[in-house]
């Protein structure tokens, strides 16, 4: 214990000294903004960041990113943060502490709350950034120089689309249960809002119960099991906020011996869900095309970094937009069975082709 006094004193005096020498807003040596976009293609560094590789949808992101990187002769640095907001921030700030002049990031923020910090960090460091899915409404790419775009999907619409599909499947009459996603996400809230819109349109459909299963297959199975016992045969359909939960619900139905009698809908169009739609055990899902998402963010950033697009020329509608999404039903499921990328989607002239409307 003898050693403790000295470092303590040194530290306290250091911090005092520091207070006297004054503070600055940012770390020295950072932030040489390169919004001009004069990078050589070979100098561009591509980074894709998602929660984890152990989920098919996000894994397809990284695949898409890799495929795009291949078309321009680069490799993508794959980052995963295991659904841990703090870890995501830590990775980003570490990344931004390196060479940021030609850095292009395609980021899936863990939640709305995480976006602001990522954006501010990238803006200060002058790194090109495309974010997807999560963003607080009052944070706008238009206010920043290197935050090129924010891409998201109209959750209300997808929630309503599958809600309607579900209503049709059960003949517009009967009880359904809903499994919500992680409650602290815009996606979960929007999708549920969509379901409520759909319920208004279909007065015959009654929402018996709603619980969260946190976007997780395992939790969805347990919750469904419980709700099935609680409501018994009144349950005609199950609305879930993503496909993982839909698949969990399917397992629960199978175990309850009610497979095929209850309609299930989900969102994301992961391969298993598409297959389930194909063989009829699921009614519908919505595809946002994960591989495209993984590639497009990098493509937009690459085009701006190499000067083929200029941020200031982009129309407001392209800075924050809903991307096109597709309702997958038995009829068109075959088209979505194998996720594939189309290199032409990633050409600089085409990167904004799927804009389905400005984000309001």
């Amino acid at each position, binding site marked *: 214990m003898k050693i403790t006094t000295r470092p303590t004193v040194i530290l306290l005096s250091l911090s005092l000294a520091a207070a006297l020498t004054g503070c600055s807003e940012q770390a020295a040596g950072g932030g040489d903004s390169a919004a001009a976009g004069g990078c050589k293609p070979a100098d561009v560094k591509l980074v894709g960041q998602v929660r984890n590789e152990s989920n098919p949808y996000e894994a397809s992101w990284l695949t898409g990113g890799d495929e795009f990187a291949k078309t321009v002769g680069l490799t993508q640095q794959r980052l995963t943060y295991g659904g841990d907001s703090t870890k995501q921030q830590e990775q980003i700030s570490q990344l931004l502490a390196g060479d940021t002049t030609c850095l292009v990031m395609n980021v899936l923020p863990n939640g709305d709350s995480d976006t602001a910090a990522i954006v501010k960090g990238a803006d200060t460091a002058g790194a090109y950034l495309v974010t997807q899915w999560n963003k607080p409404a009052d944070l706008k790419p238009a206010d920043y120089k290197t935050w090129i775009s924010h891409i998201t999907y109209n959750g209300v619409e997808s929630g309503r689309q599958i809600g309607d599909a579900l209503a049709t499947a059960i003949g517009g009459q009967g009880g359904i249960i809903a499994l919500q996603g992680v409650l602290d996400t815009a996606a979960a809230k929007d999708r549920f809002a969509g379901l409520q819109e759909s319920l208004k349109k279909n007065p015959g459909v009654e929402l018996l119960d709603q619980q969260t299963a946190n976007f997780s297959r395992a939790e969805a199975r347990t919750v469904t099991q*419980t709700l099935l016992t*609680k409501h018994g045969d009144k349950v005609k359909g199950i609305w879930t906020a993503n496909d993982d939960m839909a698949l969990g619900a399917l397992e629960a139905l199978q175990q309850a011996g009610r497979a095929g009698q209850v309609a299930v809908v989900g969102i994301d169009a992961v391969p298993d869900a598409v297959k389930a739609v194909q063989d009829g055990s699921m009614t519908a899902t919505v595809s946002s095309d994960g591989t495209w998402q993984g590639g497009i963010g990098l493509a937009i950033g690459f085009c701006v970094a190499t000067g083929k697009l200029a941020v200031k020329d982009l129309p407001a509608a392209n800075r924050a937009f809903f991307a096109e999404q597709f309702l997958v039903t038995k009829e068109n499921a075959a088209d979505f069975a194998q996720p594939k990328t189309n290199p032409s989607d990633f050409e600089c002239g085409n990167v904004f082709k799927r804009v389905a409307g400005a984000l309001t």
Partner: protein
Amino acid sequence: MFAVLSPRFRSIENVQNMVDAAAVLAVVTCGITFVLLMGSIDLSAAGVMGASALTVSLLVANNRNDNDLGLLGIGVAVLLGCAFGCLSGLALVLLKVPSFMATLGVSAVGLGVATLMFAGVQPNISDAMLKGWAIERFLGLSYLTWIAATCVLVGWLLQRYTRLGRYAFAIGGAEEVLALSGVRVKPYKVAVFAVAGAFYGLAGVMVTSQLGAGLVQAGSGYDFSAITAAVVGGTLLTGGRGGVLHSAVGVLLVVVLTNGLVQIGVSPYWQGGVEGLIVVAAVAAAVIPQRRRNQVVK
């Protein structure tokens, strides 16, 4: 209490449902109980279950490769769990890392191995037997429940009738005495962790059967739930007290609690909180009768 609040709660169906829902947790808790009896702790369930879930789903008939090993694949997955347990145990006895950290490390390794095997595409199982475990019923209960019941029985026999079980008990009671009596404690510690690992391995297989697919997150949350269940059942964290049957009761309590909350329609926001409160209350109630002024509580 829940029975009063929700008539559905009492239904036979719901009882079946609850018992079925307890299956996986019961197996995990069985394993963790042995470790807790020694006075150690085990946080590796999540990682080990993830690794075994992926292993089994890649070894039985699935959509990723042409393997169709059936029971053999299940055996390999259980053995893998066993090996991870060994790893925890070896880190504890050879490197002298406290079990808390050793198992946390092994859990991370397990998740890493699972992610490696996952390789971006979810392996769905098509093995009829394994899928059947979750669906087929015998006397109204799913096969998984019977497997869990067997595990509890095996666990109890292990604890009551084998040297391993009795020594695990004794290590929690007075480890130094064992050494003075000429018992080499270390191999038993490793063996106990290995047995626990095997239970987690089996639990991973069971989750795979339930979900029809191998998930890296197959075991997430089970580590703390199992400790909670064991403690609610009366197994002490300090070791030497409690046992598999205590833990089985704890599992039922925890499952009834979760199920009951959903049944009476408690808002999902509050559920976790109410569970936490009841766990604390359960332990507090258990402690009150033996409360003495000078007892040490850590």
